[in-house]
């Protein structure tokens, strides 16, 4: 990306001021432009694929968009998300608190690492979908099971990222804090956690993404509620545009949530990244 911008530099200078203004504006928004174009191309390919059609169960982009707008306006998305977000929010909140906490403890203490880390390594490797029937068996089909499904997917990645981040905290900064007689607590709060926060946050983002997988799995496998219900129902009555609209909506919601989390991190925790 940097190279074409450089190459544009010299001819731009000799062009008339009007032209150079246009080019400057264009290159300012270059990234946004490319992103829009990429998404546009994807929708175009979708539309064409839907019109061929590659399968009778594959709606075109415009049909899906139409269904999406309809479902947004009639409130069915609102009602669905009110249900879906419950186990997700509770599960992610629990996973974040416990995961970051355990991650930090494991990073700081060899004993805790030895005790806890293997559990999470195994949990992360285990196929969670296979364990969901087990949860149902023990905790029934209610909110508890769905929350547990979210936690089981989100917790290991959050805890393991936190642990790695703390374990790899910059030793030079730790020595600096020690040399200025920082206490044990100051070392953790003022140096290790801020230094580890980018990786902890990467873990939270991955955990949130895993949480979305967990809640949808739970809604598809345990009992159809919320957005899982929309998908299952519309599939069963062959309303494919509606089904795709529901799928697209969950992708959209999870992407936007992750982007918001990233923006929050930049704003609150890493002021130095914002300027560059």
């Amino acid at each position, binding site marked *: 990306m940097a190279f074409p911008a450089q190459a544009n530099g010299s001819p731009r200078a000799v062009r008339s001021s009007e032209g150079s203004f246009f080019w400057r504006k264009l290159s300012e928004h270059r990234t946004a432009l490319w992103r829009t174009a990429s998404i546009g191309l994807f929708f175009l390919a979708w539309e064409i694929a839907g019109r061929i059609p590659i399968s009778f169960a594959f709606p075109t982009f415009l049909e899906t968009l139409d269904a999406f707008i309809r479902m947004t306006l009639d409130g069915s998305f609102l009602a669905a998300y009110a249900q879906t977000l419950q186990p997700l929010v509770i599960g992610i909140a629990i996973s974040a608190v416990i995961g970051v906490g355990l991650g930090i403890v494991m990073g700081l203490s060899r004993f805790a690492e030895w005790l806890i880390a293997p559990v999470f390594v195994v949990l992360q490797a285990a196929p969670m979908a296979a364990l969901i029937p087990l949860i149902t068996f023990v905790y029934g089909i209610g909110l508890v099971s769905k929350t547990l499904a979210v936690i089981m997917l989100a917790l290991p990645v959050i805890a393991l990222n936190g642990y790695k981040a703390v374990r790899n905290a910059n030793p030079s900064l730790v020595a600096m*804090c020690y040399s*200025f*007689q*920082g*206490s044990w607590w100051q070392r953790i709060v003022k140096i290790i956690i801020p230094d580890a926060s980018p990786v902890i946050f990467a873990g939270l983002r991955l955990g949130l993404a895993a949480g979305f997988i967990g809640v949808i799995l739970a809604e598809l496998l345990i009992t159809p509620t919320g957005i899982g219900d929309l998908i299952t129902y519309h599939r069963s009555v062959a309303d494919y545009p509606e089904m795709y609209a529901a799928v697209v909506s969950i992708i959209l919601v999870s992407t936007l949530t992750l982007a918001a989390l990233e923006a929050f991190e930049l704003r609150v925790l890493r002021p130095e990244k914002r300027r560059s």
Partner: protein
Amino acid sequence: MRNITAEAATAATKTAGAEIAVEVRGICKMYNEVEALRSIDLDFPAGKLTTLLGPSGCGKTTLLKIIAGLIPATSGEIRVNGKTVTGPGPERAFVFQDFALMPWATVMRNVAFGLELKGMGKDERQAIAAKYIAEVGLSGFENKFPHELSGGMRQRVGLARAFAVNADVLLLDEPFSAVDEQNRRKFQEDLLELVEKEKKTFIFVTHSIEEAVYCSDRIVILSRRPGRIAQIIEPEIDRSASPDAIRRDQGYLDTVEEIWQGLKHYVD
């Protein structure tokens, strides 16, 4: 120049008349099976800049970190102002080779960090930090972040942070090694001014002979592993001359040459 190595080891450690800030007594350091330092006895006169010079791997940084209390010695004792060192203390401040600045904090917060750890109030510590930021020549950069500064400027932040805690002894671990040559020269000149002004004891680790001779009141040359004191030299350079005159001074050049002749056989 005065070479005081010839005087007996005991005499070498005593400096006539001068007050002793840091005493090193029989320091040995083993890293597992590797002997890094062997029975180092050394005095650092107060208010002077003493350089630890030596080939790489001679343990000069290890000795500095032992004095700082960052790593324990295998045997021996360090006394600062007569008190035995058991860990880092408020009378010593360390300047790190890799700057060790918090990337998420502004210049102001980095410089004031030592005071922040002591629990000093925000206004008070920022006033002190501002003074030292000005002293190292970084006024106007208070709200910049480390990544916005050059290597030389970052180390000035590290130096200001060490000054801000008002320690008697400043320990500098190859502070200019990550700074480019031109900035380094300017920085050395500024450092000498600060040494003059702050009246503190400086212990300085470097592998640059020119830097050692240019900056130091006294140079301790360590031999290769296991580190032992090979020579102690006092350059006795007239610091009232301009920096450029010093760099052309015959005494300066002779001292550099002599140290190089002494160190040459350690280089493979």
